[in-house]
């Protein structure tokens, strides 16, 4: 994964209402969301958003409904105009673009997948997938093979002549993904792309996305309200609340060091053993200790697999390796401690 920053958002504000610029002054001088609504009748959508999204990574923006996550993703391709701030893609400020440049950005650089699929009901699956090329003026003969290729890739071989209504929800969203992939844009915006699907199909689609990502290395911005989904997909996790970024870090770090009670609450219900990985809790090797270890585990193993390996014995410890080179050590007592979220421990203490 490269360190190149593909999308950089700085000081982004969005206020809905009659006179957003005036309301912006109030926000800058410290008015909160409720105050702004009560006193000035403006809705604070986003407040001082600063995020960097790295090339080739999946950045997940998570928050409950009303937290502004869908508003935020629409600022990237300017489906919504911000009140203040800047959005830079490859160093260019998108907000300076005129109509033509903006259309170019939407056609060549960013493609979007929608929660409600948003397929064209009167076009066939192939025609739908080819839409992103057709808008650039490519003829059907040029765009169809490309659309077919991506439809095959997402597992819709042979459905090309069907109409969207003939497909199930999961398959329709596959068309949505194929349509975004057909454009060959380096950035993919996914707005709650899997939220409308039932849990099993959702897992399938997450796996499909991760598989595609291993191959294509796109810059993906993924919106979700589901923490499990966020943790599964994210290379980088941004948590939004009331239009404000609460925490913005690697998912493992957020899980281990939640910054505020809101996130603690959030992460307390998670199966930590399945999400946390050895690399997040290992300690550096101190020469002498290497003798009484019980085996080796990989850097990216989940804690669940280590517990399985230890058969539940808390006295064990393991050498952590990356590409068969030892890089650290993990002992079971640390591991078990990491499994207990801070907040639930406190709650339990309060109870008794």
């Amino acid at each position, binding site marked *: 994964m490269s360190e190149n920053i593909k999308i950089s958002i700085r000081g982004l504000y969005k206020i809905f209402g009659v006179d957003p610029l005036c309301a912006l002054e109030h926000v800058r001088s410290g008015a909160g969301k409720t105050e702004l609504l009560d006193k000035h009748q403006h809705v604070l959508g986003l407040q001082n958003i600063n995020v960097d999204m790295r090339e080739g990574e999946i950045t997940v923006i998570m928050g409950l409904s009303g937290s502004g996550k869908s508003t935020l993703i629409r600022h990237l391709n300017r*489906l919504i105009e911000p009140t203040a701030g800047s959005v830079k893609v490859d160093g260019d400020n998108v907000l300076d673009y005129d109509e033509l440049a903006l*259309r170019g950005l939407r056609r060549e650089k960013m493609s979007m997948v929608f929660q409600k699929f948003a397929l064209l009901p009167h076009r066939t699956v192939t025609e739908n997938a080819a839409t992103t090329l057709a808008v650039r003026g490519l003829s059907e003969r040029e765009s169809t093979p490309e659309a077919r290729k991506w439809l095959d890739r997402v597992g819709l071989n042979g459905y090309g002549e069907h109409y*969207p209504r003939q497909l199930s929800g999961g398959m329709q969203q596959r068309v949505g993904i194929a349509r975004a992939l057909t454009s060959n844009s380096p950035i993919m915006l996914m707005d709650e792309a899997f939220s409308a699907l039932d849990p099993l199909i959702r897992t399938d689609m997450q796996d499909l996305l991760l598989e595609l990502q291993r191959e294509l290395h796109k810059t993906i911005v993924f919106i979700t309200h589901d923490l499990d989904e966020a943790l599964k997909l994210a290379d980088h996790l941004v948590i939004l609340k009331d239009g404000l970024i609460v925490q913005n870090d690697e998912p493992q770090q957020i899980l281990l060091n939640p910054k505020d009670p809101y996130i603690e609450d959030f992460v307390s219900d998670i199966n930590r053993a399945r999400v946390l990985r050895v690399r997040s809790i290992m300690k550096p090797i101190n020469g002498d200790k290497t003798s009484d270890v019980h085996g080796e585990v990989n850097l990216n193993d989940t804690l669940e697999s280590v517990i399985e390996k230890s058969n539940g014995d808390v006295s064990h410890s393991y050498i952590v390796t990356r590409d068969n080179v030892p890089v650290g050590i993990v002992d079971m007592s640390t591991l078990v401690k990491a499994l207990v979220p801070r907040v639930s421990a406190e709650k339990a203490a309060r109870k008794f």
Partner: protein
Amino acid sequence: MADLLAKAKGGEANSAPWWEFSFPSLDALNKACASFPQSRDVTKGVEEVFLAIKDALRIVLDPLTQPLSWMLEFILSVVQVAPWWLMLPVILLIVYLASKSLRLVGFVAICLGFLAFIDHYDHAMQTLSIIFVCAFLCVFFGVPIGIAMSRSDNLQRIIIPILDMLQTLPPFVYLIPLIFLFSVTEPKLYGIAIILYAIVPVIRLTDLGIRLVDEDVIEAADSFGMTERQKLFGVQIPLALPNIMAGVNQTIMMSLAMVVIASLVSAPGLGVLVLRGIRNLELGVGLVSGLGIVLLAIILDRVTKAALDRINASQKSQ
């Protein structure tokens, strides 16, 4: 004002009880004081204004609407010249292409065959051809107006009251100013009346249809960088088509209603027979031609509805 009223009352018999005084209308006021105009002066004033601008209006409207006369004259002469064994198959072919239903084609064949059998073929064809021209022009002008309305809230605010007026104005009222503007012998006289009356639903439903297009799909279209043009022709119009077609159906039915009334101003067709039935108290002629109009109405309605259903079936999402 009170003095004047008292004077007016005083002038009349004093025996009337006090509560029986008349509303201070123009005529009542004029009785008391001759310097008030009478209400017939108002209607006369309206008439004079209309007559004064009539010539100017005609100079503008006459050439603008002349093509309508030509089109109506042309199609009426075509159906007159074309033999029945050519016209009927052509109509049945159109029915088939629109509905793709052989049952409906059979039904239309029986209805038209019946009308021809009782010697109403010529009149029915004249009625159909007038409807054809007028409904075509309604769609031709109505759809763009509807599209323009759907894109501008201001335009919508202006046009909706006009549509409301056109829709509520009794059909006979359309005819009055038109008779003064154009000669009664010109086909465009009834053509304009029919178009004004029948264009309303197609405008309304085009506007509604485009405004009802799924926001998500429009957003998706925007996110792929579609131009306004691509969006209009590739997304909005196709998705609004069921509503637009419902408007076309209504427009055709309303043209049929108006073409009967328009026989008062020399529109040919079945309406002439109905009029004869009323004028000469020829009960049978009136009823049979009325039945003919009902049959035409059923044919037009079924065919357009079948076309609409076909579009609906291909559009159902999810």
